[in-house]
């Protein structure tokens, strides 16, 4: 039971730029109808590509507008949004980039795009006051090993064999590509207030932060840090992670997750 039998043909023709226009269009010649229907086709295609461009601005800046549009159009063909909430659409776009031979020369591109997914998720994440660093001071040393931190809703950790955090920062206002050294990076994304913050972590800090974000006890997280680097400084790394706004609370005892 449908109120307009032509709707499916209309929708189908939107997705097929080389196909005929749907029947029932009144206005001029068939060529005119084609050119008028093309406005809707173009609106749909450019609207969705534009939504990706606004969610992946650094990726778009790296590859240039034409390449980005071509890549995004192919993604749109296979992965249309199912909700009007476009701010959460496109999480699979980075993995799609890795399947494109044309993008293979830019090995870091998909991970930069993954960082943009993390940044946009952090941007829209729920508000929560970050745990203040002085809150750590009141905890007895004996209780610290069993304590756990509660992750802030905006906190995200991304590991990459590429310098994704440096590349992202180089594309922000005032950044410069000359600042990028080609090495692996682990990036902690936080948004303690209104601003996004990126912190680059050493391998030991990354192991530590990943464990804390996964609600492991501080003692276990510290052991992972030490295993990664014998010189790991537990106290300094804990203060840095908390000061960065990655956590909202500390719980002294709790069941294993």
């Amino acid at each position: 039971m449908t109120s307009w039998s032509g709707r499916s043909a209309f929708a189908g023709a939107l997705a097929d730029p080389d196909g005929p226009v749907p029947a029932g269009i009144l206005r001029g010649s068939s060529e005119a109808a084609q050119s008028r229907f093309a406005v809707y086709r173009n609106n749909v295609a450019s609207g969705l590509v534009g939504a990706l461009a606004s969610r992946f601005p650094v990726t778009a800046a790296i590859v240039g507008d034409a390449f980005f549009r071509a890549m995004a159009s192919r993604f749109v063909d296979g992965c249309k949004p199912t909700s009007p909430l476009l701010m959460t659409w496109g999480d699979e776009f980075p993995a799609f980039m890795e399947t494109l031979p044309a993008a293979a020369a830019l090995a870091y591109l998909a991970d930069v795009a993954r960082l943009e997914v993390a940044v946009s998720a952090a941007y829209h994440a729920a508000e929560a006051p970050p745990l203040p660093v002085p809150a750590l001071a009141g905890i007895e040393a004996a209780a610290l090993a069993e304590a756990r931190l509660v992750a802030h809703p905006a906190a995200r950790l991304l590991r990459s064999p590429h310098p994704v955090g440096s590349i992202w920062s180089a594309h922000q206002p005032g950044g410069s590509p000359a600042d990028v050294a080609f090495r692996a990076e682990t990036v902690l994304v936080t948004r303690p207030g209104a601003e996004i913050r990126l912190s680059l972590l050493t391998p030991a800090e990354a192991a530590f932060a990943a464990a804390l974000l996964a609600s492991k006890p501080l003692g276990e997280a510290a052991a992972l840090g030490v295993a990664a680097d014998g010189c790991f400084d537990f106290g300094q790394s804990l203060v840095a992670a908390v000061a960065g706004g990655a956590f909202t609370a500390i719980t002294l005892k709790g069941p294993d997750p």
Partner: protein
Amino acid sequence: MTATVSLPPRSGLGLKPEHCRAILAETPDVGFFEVHAENYMGAGGPPHRWLTAIRERYPLSIHGVGLSIGGGAPLDRDHLARLRRLVDRYEPESFSEHLAWSTHDGVFLNDLLPLPYTDATLADVVRHIDQVQEALGRRMLLENPSSYLALEESAWPETDFLGEIAARTGCGLLLDVNNVMVSAVNLGYDPVLYLERFPMRHVGEIHLAGYDETADADGARLLIDSHASRVRPDVWGLYGHALRLTGPVATLVEWDNDVPPLSELLAEAAVVDRKLCEASARRVA
């Protein structure tokens, strides 16, 4: 439904993130701001911080672009629930949506697509608007679309179709004067006659915007509703005519692409306010 609040009969501007800081610092003399609902459906973050601060200082219109009220399928209940939360949070003076569809077979197409005006599509739209007004607990405004082609099946003139929807649902109408010009040129009718026939007593807000101009394959003028420039002179003229029919009514300048500096938007808003003043003076005289 709860008591009706409404936007002031003043100029309004679409709120753009890049202008928020300046708006809060300078609190320019603008009647209201309008936002697209879908841009404020995240849990938190800068968009809500800005909007909360601006809402404390200005009347607010929330304008949806994703409900697909003209679609054949039932409305997306999750989306309706998100709208409800947004409307509850900001208590805007106005909520509006479009006479168009944007979702089909579960896919969101991110465009405002045309429907034929028939008894059957009328029934769909009326049911959907009843559902929206019920879910939001308030009256909504429905906007006339911009059209690039006409559909053979249409049996109702657009103006009568909108009037019938308003009569059956109690909703108000958002008269987009740029859309009237775009559709009139594209479909070959007289925009003034369209206005004369428009059910003006239901109009709660007017939209203005810039269009782009091209030609179809037969060389006929084809206007594109691009929201990427100043309001065109012929649309200002048509707006003047609309105001003679409506009296002063809240009027938004939409400029969503190639967004200019705030000062340029404020200059457009000042033109609106001058015309609204003239309309008030006429009313008194």
